[in-house]
């Protein structure tokens, strides 16, 4: 399946609803009337874009259509979304650092562990020696879950007993990576609600431990967001950003039902790029993010 097809199938429902709500209006050119604007707003809100980003995208589409009379609403929207999502870009790809250290962070249940397993499998397949670090010592059996993923991906895993200090596990993991010469270290952290001050402080500590063992690390902090998430995503991104500088976002469970529009709000307000999308539960079900393909997936 091509990249575009994957986005198209991931965003299928959202697109269908968009078409249902807007119908022929998507082919319209020139000025947008009140009724079309209302329908458009409803469609964007239904995609979880949120009131503010919806307004921004509508204004942007109107501006483009005024400037170019040949442009129809569908393409005006598509370009607006592509521009918004492409304003900043990021790839989740190891750099030249040895080891290259990445943290996966996010609230509970967004799919961090599953994504960590998939990303590790991808790197291992590219011939990079990869180490998984199970820093979720809180959730019962989280380590066992990652263990299964590590063996599926054929990579090594550093773990500790439940309830251990996550920073200590990270310390062990990075020491092991340095000693054994791993190229890539992926740290799976425990899910934490962004409103929990002590857990966010714990995350800061994990970051400090990384920097102490491998100067300049973590090289990438990936905030994992669930695509069925609503407007709270913005709040999550903002609070995580405070604890540890977020490099990019991953959207998980973008698999046909999710709306995925919450990332529009986040891109609009916080200018954070998306780097990875998770499309299902299989080992290979993830993709690098592509703003243009995402925009076309929404509207074409």
């Amino acid at each position, binding site marked *: 399946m091509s990249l575009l097809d994957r986005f198209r199938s991931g965003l299928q*429902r959202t697109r269908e609803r968009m078409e249902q709500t807007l119908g022929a209006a998507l082919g319209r050119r020139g000025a947008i009337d009140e009724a079309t604007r209302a329908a458009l707003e*409803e469609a964007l*809100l*239904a*995609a*979880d874009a*949120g*009131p503010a980003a919806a307004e921004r995208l509508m204004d942007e589409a109107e501006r483009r259509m005024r400037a170019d009379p040949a442009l129809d609403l569908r393409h005006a929207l598509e370009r607006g979304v592509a521009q918004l999502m492409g304003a900043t870009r990021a790839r989740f790809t190891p750099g030249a650092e040895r080891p290259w250290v990445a943290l996966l962070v996010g*609230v*509970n*249940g*967004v*799919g961090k562990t599953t994504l960590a397993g998939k990303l590790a499998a991808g790197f291992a397949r590219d011939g990079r020696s990869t180490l998984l670090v199970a820093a979720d010592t*809180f*959730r*019962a*059996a*989280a380590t*066992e*879950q990652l*263990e*299964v*993923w590590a063996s599926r991906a054929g990579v090594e895993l550093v773990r500790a007993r439940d309830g251990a200090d996550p920073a200590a596990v990270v310390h062990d993991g990075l020491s092991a990576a340095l000693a054994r010469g791993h190229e890539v270290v992926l740290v799976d952290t425990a899910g934490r*609600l*962004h*409103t*929990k*001050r002590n857990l966010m402080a714990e995350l800061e500590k994990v970051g400090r431990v990384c920097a102490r063992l491998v100067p300049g690390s973590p090289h990438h902090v990936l905030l994992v967001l*669930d695509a*069925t*998430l*609503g*407007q*709270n*995503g913005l*709040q999550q991104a903002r609070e995580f950003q405070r604890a540890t500088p977020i490099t990019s976002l991953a959207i998980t*469970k973008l*698999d*046909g*039902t*999710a*709306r995925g*529009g*919450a990332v529009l709000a986040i891109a609009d307000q916080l200018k954070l790029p998306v780097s990875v999308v998770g499309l299902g*539960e299989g080992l290979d079900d993830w993709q690098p993010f592509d703003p243009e393909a995402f925009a076309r997936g929404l509207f074409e």
Partner: protein
Amino acid sequence: MFEALTDRLQGIAKRLTGQGKLTPENIRESLRDVRRALLEADVEVAVARDLVARVEARAVGDEVLRSLTPGQQVVGIVREELESLLGHAPVTLAGSPHVPTVVLLAGLQGSGKTTFAGKLARWLGGRDKRVMLASADVHRPAAIDQLARLAGMAEAGFWRAPEGAAPEAIAGGALDEARRRGFDFLVLDSAGRLQIDEPMMAELETLRRASRAHQVLLVMDGMTGQEAVRVGRAFAGRVGVDGLVLTKMDGDARGGAALSLRQATGKPILFLGVGEKLDGLEAFDAARIAGRILGMGDIVGLVEKARAAVDEQQARRLVERARKSEFTLEDFLGQLQQVRKMGPLDELMKLMPGVPRQALAGAVPDEGKLRRYEAILLSMTPRERRLPRVIDGSRRRRIAAGSGTTVTEVNRLLKDYDQARALMKQMRHGPRGLASLRGRMR
């Protein structure tokens, strides 16, 4: 939100008519704010639209327009409509006359089913019910281990199916086992699934049949967006849902999904999941969630937090001491520690009704200061805390060095303490104060 809305409606009325009355037009305009608040809280677009339409229909009636306080009236209508949508009467998990009562948990991936299963076991255990947990989640790696671990923590029974058993066989086996061992409740966890995943939905149906579930609870992440309605409708339509559970409600999500789910399924919301610990389960309260959805804070949540942190006896002792003006630095330290136990202050402020988020910045005493105060107090000797007047210049220098602060800060603390004591003295003479504050907290 309610306060702002009331002000706005009153303001418009005054300005436009000079008589304090509203017109249908300006009511409509104000209701746009309500709609926006609902949408920002993730209430589904159609649900929000219907709600606003119902409010509008009632609000432009003669009664409101002729009222002298039309603003309050409209706001009252918004509240009523919201609460009636959410369901007024509290509902709890019903036991069945047939033992065991079988509760099947269903939902999307990552909604918190397994954690909820552990919490429910603890909750039922606290009501003297014997509970057995079993997991039919053969899909997520280590999901069954996770539930086994939680069952241990909740001191509930657990049954593990033979390796490789299909979900249907697990459901039947768990039921037999629970019957045989005489459990009151069987809570059966299932794998997370998408509502459009046909084979998985068929599996859930099979699970329901094989376990003879009395209650299917749909467990949903409280942060879910617009999709909540479809998820609710699909699970209710395909498998049947008897009750709803919203999880992760200890975050700052406004919880509009509650409204969407109620509308989609017509079923009661039984529980709210708060926190990762096993006792983090709360009964649903429509008034609280209505307030939260409209961004007006959660005063009940605040009080519960306070209650959890404040030791009743200690509080009573404090009131007694205040009355006798014996409030010492020991008490000051105790108070400080209780406030700190309630969690970060800015989080608490978010729960306060009528405090706009923007106003929070800078207004909250910062966490660092409290921590330093605690360090200073702990660096004093017990005698110094009991008799603060003995703290002279030399002692101040020692305390500052011991707590890693400065003499200026020690001085500032002592000044704050003096003020607090003066306040306590005032309270002694007035009927209001700590005692009445505690009365309100009940």
